[in-house]
């Protein structure tokens, strides 16, 4: 004869609760940034004679690109890893875009907020300049960005 204990099946979680728990775990893992902050895309634009600044997350793996008057321009020595509190100064002068790391932001630009690096774009050229900093998601395709639309 089967014992009462062996006949009892373990308590089963209903499909609704199972789906809710799994869904919420996924939301917590991704939504809290445990898998990384997601793909970043920060652009700075400056008209001739202007200076602009943007705060970026202190991450590595940045891809940096620039356009001068709408045309793709090379950007020299742009750091691909940004540290907390770092100031990156990008200057367009005589039609060339160059980069240097500064101890402090130039005059008139406030320091970066806490837990951020700062990129400052100084445009001394005669045409508008645009600099874009991008990172991919921490875990790239195929896990993320499944459908590119």
């Amino acid at each position, binding site marked *: *004869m*089967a*014992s009462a204990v*062996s*006949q009892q099946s373990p308590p089963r979680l*209903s*499909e*609704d*609760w*199972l*789906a*809710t728990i*799994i*869904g*919420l775990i*996924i*939301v917590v893992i*991704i*939504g809290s*940034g445990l*898998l990384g*902050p*997601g*793909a*970043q895309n920060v652009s700075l634009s400056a008209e001739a004679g202007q200076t602009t600044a943007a705060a970026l997350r202190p991450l590595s793996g940045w891809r940096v690109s620039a356009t001068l008057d709408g045309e793709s321009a090379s950007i020299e020595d742009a750091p691909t890893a940004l540290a907390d509190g770092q100031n990156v100064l990008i200057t367009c002068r005589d039609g060339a875009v160059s980069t240097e790391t500064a101890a402090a932001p130039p005059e008139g630009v406030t320091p970066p907020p806490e837990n951020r690096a700062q990129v400052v774009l100084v445009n001394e050229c005669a045409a508008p300049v645009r600099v874009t900093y991008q990172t991919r*998601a921490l875990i790239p*395709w*195929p896990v*993320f*960005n*499944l*459908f*590119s*639309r």
Partner: protein
Amino acid sequence: MTTTTASQATAEQPTAIEHTLPGLIAGVLLLIVLTLLVAEIDRAIANSFRAQGVAQNPLEYPLTAAVIGLIANAVLRLTGLYQRVRPAIRTELYLKIGLVILGARISVGDLLALGAGGLIQAVIMVGSVFFFTWWLGGKLKLPDTLRAVMASAVSICGASAAIAAAGAVQARKEEVTYITALVIVVALPMMVLAPAVATALNLPPDVAGAWFGGNIDTTAAVVGAGTVYGPEAQAVASVVKLSQNVFIGFVSFALAIYFVTVVNRDKDAPRPSPKVIWQRFPKFVLGFVLVAVLASLKVFPSELARELNTATQWAFTLAFICIGLDFSVAEIRSAGIRPVIVFLGATVFNTALALVVAYIIFGVLF
């Protein structure tokens, strides 16, 4: 006597877990591979549309996933492997997981930020078209679950709304497949016809955009029609569609309550107690609401909200592949032609009403 006691059985035979675990693992791996295949095919289709000047892929991925599932279904049955992977075919589970995460796309703040014009049009369109489709479906004696799924799809935003409503009312898999296929088959010609009609009627771009946003079911086809008509039409079309999309959550929650308290209630039984309502209520809707509240409070940064959307797509793709794997021709055939008649009737109503409402709101009032 050859009776085996339960304790002997546990010792000599594999337990349920031991029995299903290898099949579950193999099935999940197969589903992952098929999902990646769907993504590749979706990417190729999107590229071919882009080459034709259509910015977004109007053949939405659920249909591709269902077709891939259908092919896999045939192959697995031919090779005799179907039963091995059967434990991983959990359509409802994947749908419900996807719906919980979908909450991240719903934001009350976005709804309020849409502006009065888009919001008024969305309320009028979603309300009128939903109840018209529900009424017409009742006249043609469609099952209540199918009416709910169809009314949500036509009035809100096509496949996503159909999936959300199906979860809330516990609709059958075949009903979701049927409606998703109808949505896409009707949206594709509408993407081309609507801009042509708008040109013939000489509609201003904002009125035309509001009309596309109000009457075409899928977001991709709305953007496609707007693109054909011009940038202003595209912008207005997107805003109007977005304003309708945010109603998914409200309608799903209302449907869940309505089905528990009215549709699924025994007519002779007394009014269900709160305990019975709770027992019958689809609990995952609470997860959906919780995530939507967090999204409305801007808990998730925008870049992480995008990643959550990818997770929703993963879950829905798994679900639609499973729909293909579980597909029953007999079930679809048994639905007959009546759902098509109701769907086309609702689409005609939607198209005519959206034109009038878009003209009054965007052509006269704003």
